[in-house]
């Protein structure tokens, strides 16, 4: 369990600290070396009032657009205090607005400096939260994000609460995947999908999100790191996706069965307390069978 935050400024958990400083930081460093060795990176996202990501990756970062959607004055003041105490005055630009509205809007009201090489969507809630008309703000905003990145390489960090009012959307998607791969008679396909389902939203999101991103990024070849399930304020699932620009064809990248199989075969990492990282493997779906 995370420490009580009552009366205490710090709100992150040990697990999240570990992910940020040991796992993600290394990913950021490698990414920068690969794509932007001569320059520092621009960060967009929901860093929270303590700016923990920004402080942890500070040496790689040139500029931050910090989206703060909360109306809570205390949160806002604490964010300003963090900025000043850490001498980030000319690095961090705070935008008080809803991130989904910003990403879905066609107008750049906040002088955002697209493209951003690091995007952190640390959502407190779920991913889908489907509305009555079956659309989802969050899903739409991620689509908006990808289109605004102008085909430039970037890292996307998404952290999700397992609770999600998806109205059966995830089950539907898993079924579609199963139906689509079934004709190929792949060994362990059914077992793998069954195991994912048994884990509940953890297993379903592990497939759902990457599949969604895969299908909505024709100009990119997303590279998925294995997701991490950890204990924050609640149980959270953390994804890191490296968006590599695809230039192979003018019509965009083709999605093939192997792409789905790779997603299924990815392990799940578990982090319950501190530096105790564990790997959970799923039945290996064999594409050569």
């Amino acid at each position: 369990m995370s420490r009580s935050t009552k009366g205490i400024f710090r709100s992150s958990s040990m697990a999240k600290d570990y992910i940020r400083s040991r796992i993600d930081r290394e990913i950021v460093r490698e990414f920068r070396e690969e794509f932007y060795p001569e320059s520092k990176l621009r960060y967009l996202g929901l860093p929270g009032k303590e700016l923990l990501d920004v402080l942890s990756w500070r040496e790689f970062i040139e500029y931050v657009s910090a989206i703060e959607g909360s109306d809570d004055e205390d949160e806002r003041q604490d964010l300003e205090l963090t900025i000043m105490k850490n001498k980030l005055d000319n690095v961090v630009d705070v935008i008080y607005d809803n991130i989904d509205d910003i990403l879905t809007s066609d107008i750049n009201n906040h002088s955002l400096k697209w493209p951003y090489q690091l995007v952190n969507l640390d959502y407190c809630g779920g991913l889908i939260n489907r509305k009555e008309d079956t659309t989802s703000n969050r899903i739409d905003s991620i689509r908006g994000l990808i289109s605004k990145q102008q085909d430039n390489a970037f890292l996307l960090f998404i952290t999700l609460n397992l609770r999600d009012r998806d109205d059966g959307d995830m089950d539907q998607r898993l079924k579609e995947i199963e139906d689509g791969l079934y004709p190929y008679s792949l060994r362990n396909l059914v077992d793998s999908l069954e195991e994912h389902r048994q884990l509940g939203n953890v297993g379903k999101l592990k497939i759902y999100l990457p599949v969604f991103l895969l299908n909505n990024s024709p100009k990119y070849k997303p590279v998925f790191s294995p997701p991490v399930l950890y204990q924050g304020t609640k149980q959270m699932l953390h994804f890191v996706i490296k968006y590599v620009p695809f230039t192979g064809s003018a019509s965009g990248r083709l999605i093939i069965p192997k792409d789905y199989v790779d997603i299924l075969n990815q392990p799940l990492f578990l982090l319950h307390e501190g530096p105790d990282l564990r790997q959970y493997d799923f039945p290996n779906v064999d594409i050569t069978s």
Partner: protein
Amino acid sequence: MSTWTKKPVTWTIKDVGASLLDSIAGGLYSKLEVFREYVQNAGDSYTDFQRVTGKSPQNQVQVRVDERNGTLSIMDYGLGMDEVDINTAKKIAVSPKAVRTTEFVGFRGIGIWSGLAACEKLVVITTKYQDPHEYRLTIDCKGIIENISPIPLDEILQDRVIIEERMGQKDDHFTQVTLHHINRSQFSDLLDTEALRRYSERFLPVPFDPSWKDEKEGSYSEAIEKYLEDTPWTANYNLIINNEPVYRKFPDTKNIQFPTKEIITDSGGRTVAIAWVSETRRDNSKKGVITTNDGSVSNFAIRVKNFVIGGRGLYSEEGVSDIQNLKWFVGEIYITDPDIRPDTKRIRFQPSERHDEVIKAIKKFYTSTVCRARALSAQLTVLQKCTSAQTFIDEIKILCAQHTIDDGSKTASLFKVKEITSQLSSVKASIDDALREIAKKDNPDQESETVLAIRRYYRRKDVKQTIEASLGQINTFELQLPELIREAFGDEAKSVLAVSERPKRRSQARTSRLPGKPVNPEAVFKPQNTGVSTPIESSVTKKQVVDLDTAIDAFQAAVASVLGDNSEAYQKIIDRIPEELQRRGINV
């Protein structure tokens, strides 16, 4: 009738009306003065830190301007405040600083309330050195201003001034003041980074730019810091606005000379201020005004506790003449007299016992500085004359060298040599005057400050050397000149020499001997009856028409002025005139 008996009078906050806040809200401070107040408080916090801990503070005042969101934050890492301190800070016009030592800059206790009119909400977050608690003071400025009325003060402030506490980090010590939702219509400058920077450069105790140096003479910044190291209340803050440091801005070293230190004393000889002064370097023109197009400054700023009071040249408006000459200088005057304090608006000194004496001393400093300007001007003039002398000598030499061969332009060159020789004489006289001035003994009781200053400037080593060298050169040349001219111009040179050797006297031209008669000016402009039937037309322009007598008179006068009417050459020329006219078909 019975006698009076005193009754006890008690005061409570109910006796003070909320309308008092109107004064604070209604412009006690202008927009940037609000900023200054918070920076000043930040600075005082460092003084507190040093006093309490004995450690050297980091002296950094950090400013964050968030124009989009309309907030301005000022943060210091000084002593900070605990619960008692924050309760004291919220008081209106009651300052513990006023009864503490004179080292504090702020003293009126208005500090925290300075921004009342500038924003909707003022928030102070602070934690004191070695106290694990953080405190937050929130003032609902908008609510207070909207509800100002003749009700007791405590009623209007109730629930609009809140103090809260939480746990913090024990090692932290800071104070952050944030003005939220700044009133853009009247206080837009508080959200303008450039405006804040410019204001800070000119008025606040920010450091000198470490890059302000001359290649040959060295660092101007370091020199001034050295002058001031033993002067009280000259400590600076490292002011950082949006992570960029702010420095005082002064003219480029190529435009001003190395600064010097001056001590300003009153009529009793007591030191009242320390100044540093830098003079213009404009040595190629009489106009020595320091240009300030690049945003730098000229003239003098007066600093009290290192904050600038009023405008540049304060107190020079009366009793100091030629104040425009102060712009030939740039500098600062640091008041060291502890009796001197700024008024509320910090535009002049507050009246006090020593007020008049100190102002008098400052005016005397300005006057002597103006005299320096005059002296500098005289110096520039005489140096220019030395340069001109060299130019004249060179021109004469060139003209003489051109005429080893006899050609038609000899006469014109002779005229030119004569003219330049005359100019050289005039310049020599000025340079000679300067040299005589150098040799004179100073008599401060009888001579004006300007005269003494001029002499002082003439006596500067490089100036004196230039004057002496120039005069020597002229004297040597004058000895050589007759021979030079004779070689170049032959017989005609004699008459030039004769003219140049003769003392100056009135022209001998015929026209100057005519008695003349009074005439109507209008008649003068009518064409004269020369007795010549055919008007003379200029062979060069084909346009001008002049009567023959006038033309001959003018020509004769010109020749006589150059050659002298007793010279052989003159006579020869005059004798040839009729012949030349006849050749041109004119009978005289």
